[in-house]
């Protein structure tokens, strides 16, 4: 197996990020930033993010990197993580954990106000976390939020830093209000979001006057908008990233944070069906698919967690093994014809599904691609929830209907959890893909974090000339 140095990607990302972050002049105020994105969320409520809300058949993509980034423009979490993954104070200024990490107390920052002027309180923060996590025991105690978990939870801080745990105050009309640097002034679900700078943001008014986000745009339309100067920042399809960087455009790329996988819609009903699923996993020629269809982007994957996140991903072989696949297939007498679903709006998804069907045929399996809603298995893009491997694995496990219920521990325990999840044959990892964005030369000081989320709170628009 070829040794892949993921650091090259991160370095590339950091360099681009650094170029974006470095300013010849101090940040300038003013201007409206135009962003285009493929996701088309129907709701702004951060609690709608998360594995239980991931509906692969839904093109709205309830959870995506763009969606998470969008959330952080309007809402804040109790804590945040820096680029090194270290937890930092945010709406909470300090915290304490009882022995065993079951009871956590977070002291709320004073002087923070929601966009409607309501002061942030422990009661509102507790209510928000309860709504997002019904199984948690969350209460307010004076100026603190107390979270009690049934089991020890060393990953709670990383969990609280996720966008889906942002603090939200529900207005009487049902609209969410946050404490982030921007508040929304226009909202057409799934189509358009218009944000304006919050003059009284506790972290200071953002440099931009506003942001206009067009949603539901195909990758091609986004790139056209960038080329015509109608957008300042757009998403880039993984298979287009290489070409766009060669064209000399400003491109930022994250670490591989997205899992492209086959997800069976139900559990294997018998040992024979498990053998057939194993045969399919062994038949896929990940290497050549990457080189041709993905244009060299991403990494073949046989593990759920990318190697850079776990440190052991290379143990899972990604090489196709047709003899073994055929051997597994031949142990089963009756082979059903499966349908493989894909997202019809994803230009490369159909090609991938067709190529996987060809590989399956070589192993004696029958796989029929379909863009219809129901299928036996689906080709899915799963944005890994966090650089914290335990949280990322737990989210994928929940998505596969196999919650792990465990977080934190030794790397060997993580490996055992991942092996157990893969052994269910519910999910077949194919690739780990980075997230890429292209930006106009006028956009300064924006950052694409290695976890695939972008931050625009400190971004500003210049004239684009050196």
């Amino acid at each position, binding site marked *: 197996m070829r040794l892949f140095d993921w650091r090259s990607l991160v370095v590339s990302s950091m360099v681009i990020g650094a170029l974006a972050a470095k300013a010849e002049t101090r940040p300038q105020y003013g201007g409206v930033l135009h962003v285009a994105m493929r996701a088309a969320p129907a709701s702004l409520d951060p609690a709608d993010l998360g594995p239980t809300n991931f509906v692969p058949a839904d093109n709205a993509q309830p959870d995506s990197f763009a969606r998470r980034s969008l959330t952080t423009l309007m809402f804040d979490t109790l804590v945040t993580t820096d680029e090194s993954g270290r937890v930092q104070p945010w709406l909470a200024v300090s915290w304490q954990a009882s022995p065993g990490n079951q009871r956590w107390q977070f002291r709320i920052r004073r002087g923070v106000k929601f966009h409607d002027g309501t002061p942030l309180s422990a009661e509102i923060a507790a209510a928000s976390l309860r709504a997002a996590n019904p199984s948690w025991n969350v209460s307010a105690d004076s100026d603190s939020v107390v979270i009690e978990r049934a089991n020890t939870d060393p990953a709670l801080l990383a969990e609280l830093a996720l966008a889906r745990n942002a603090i939200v105050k529900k207005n009487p009309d049902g609209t969410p209000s946050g404490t982030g640097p921007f508040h929304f002034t226009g909202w057409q679900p799934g189509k358009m979001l218009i944000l304006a700078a919050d003059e009284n943001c506790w972290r200071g008014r953002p440099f931009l006057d506003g942001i206009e986000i067009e949603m539901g745009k195909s990758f091609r339309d986004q790139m056209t908008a960038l080329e015509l100067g109608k957008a300042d920042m757009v998403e880039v399809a993984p298979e287009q990233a290489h070409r766009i960087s060669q064209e000399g455009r400003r491109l930022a790329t994250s670490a591989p944070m997205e899992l492209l996988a086959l997800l069976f819609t139900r559990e294997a009903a018998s040992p024979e069906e498990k053998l057939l699923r194993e045969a399919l996993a062994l038949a896929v020629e990940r290497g050549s698919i990457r080189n041709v269809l993905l244009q060299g982007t991403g990494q073949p994957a046989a593990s759920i967690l990318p190697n850079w996140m776990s440190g052991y991903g290379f143990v899972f072989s990604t090489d196709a093994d047709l003899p073994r696949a055929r051997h597994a297939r031949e142990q089963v007498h009756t082979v059903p014809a499966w349908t493989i679903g894909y997202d019809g709006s994803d230009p490369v998804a159909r090609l991938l599904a067709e190529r996987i069907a060809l590989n399956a045929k070589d192993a004696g399996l029958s796989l029929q691609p379909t863009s219809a809603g129901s299928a036996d298995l689906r080709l899915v893009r799963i944005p890994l929830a966090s650089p914290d491997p335990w949280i990322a694995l737990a989210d994928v496990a929940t998505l596969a209907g196999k919650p792990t219920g465990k977080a934190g521990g030794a790397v060997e325990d993580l490996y055992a959890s991942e092996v157990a999840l893969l052994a269910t044959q519910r999910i077949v990892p194919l690739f780990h893909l980075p997230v890429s964005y292209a930006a106009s030369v006028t956009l300064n000081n924006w950052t694409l974090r290695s976890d695939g989320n972008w931050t625009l709170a*400190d971004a500003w628009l210049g004239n684009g000339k050196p």
Partner: protein
Amino acid sequence: MRGAVYNLAIPNTIPSSVNRVSRSPLSPRFAVQLSFALLALAMAARATDWSGPEQQLARKIVAVTGPGAVALTVENRSSLGKRDSEIIQNGLRSALEGLGIRFVNAEQAAATVSISLSENPSSYVWVAEIRQGAGEVAVVMVSAPRPAGSTTTHESVPLSLRKISLWTQQDPILDIAVLEENTTPTRIAVLDAENISLYRLQAGKWQQEQALGIVHARPWPRDLRGRLIPAKDHLLDAYLPGVMCRSSAGAPLTLNCRETDDPWPLVPAGLSGGSFSVFPSAGSSAAAIPPAGAFFAPTRNFFTGALTPGTSKFTTVSKFYSAAMLPREKYLLWIFASTDGRVHMVDGMNDQVAKLGWGSDLTSVKTTCGAGWQVLATSSGDQAGDSVRAYEFPDRDPVAVSAAVDFQGGAIITALWAEAKGDTAIAMVRNRETGSYEAFRLAVACSQ
């Protein structure tokens, strides 16, 4: 409740690493010897004890294979250097031998063990894949914390601009005022977003004397800026957007902050005819330059352009981030780094605009070198980070008179202000490698 895992940062008391430049000339031979000695020391200091994870992994391997003949391969897939990788490989071999393993060729082996030295963001992860006969591959692994590494770079600047480390902390530094010094600073005030912290050098270590909280009603703007100005009749004043704070005169110090749009001083007090008790040598010999100030936008990161007093016919200039002055024989030339990225040179009669490719922070220092005044200007370098360079203005075109000085860790310069005496400047930077903020005194040296 116990087991606190995090609390608000306590102001750092990291000792300043003052750059002690030897004044005695070194012979080349001694310099080479010294370099080798330092290199050896550095290598020794970087050596890490890997014996714990080596023993741990060896035990896990032997728990699978049992004692006997094993074929072993070790591959480094991590950021570990070749030297560390070899040390670990030898350590693993020794640990395995100690547990009864004999190393043989693959053909003679009862088991093959492939060890990969890998890593994730927080740890080194060492994975052993063990194959015995035609059975399944067994995988065992251990992890070891990754130490925070740092690289040291040093640029030998032939002349002119020297940087001297003053202070490091995790929170952004807005300004630093040196309140007392002998040959090196012995008492400093550090301005950040919430406090003015006073530190005194005692027995080689900086000890915090007092932290004075800054009271402000409104949230600070992003890209917060601020100035600390030592005063004659009290200790110091602090200027922040929309807020001015004045300390009391004697101990225990108090700080009185009020919302105001009072102008920020542009001319170091040491050059404007005043002299400070803490700097008896400063000011008295300096040609007096009239005090001048500029209004700072209370919710932004720039000066509004309104000057007080004005400079001849100009009472207002373009909005600017920073200003430097250059006294001429009959007039004072002001150089403004405007918010539009251009440099405005205002002499009282003309406002000449130039695009010099400078950054937005500049200041001037009065020295005994060259033309007597130099402008220190920032510029955005390549990926190595921002830098500062000294310029002189024989006429209206700047001439670089020093090499560009950059900072460790691909640093980004966040502020550059002249010190009270006017002959040195302080650069505040953010170290992108460590994420910490550092302050350096910049001094122009005359000799090569």
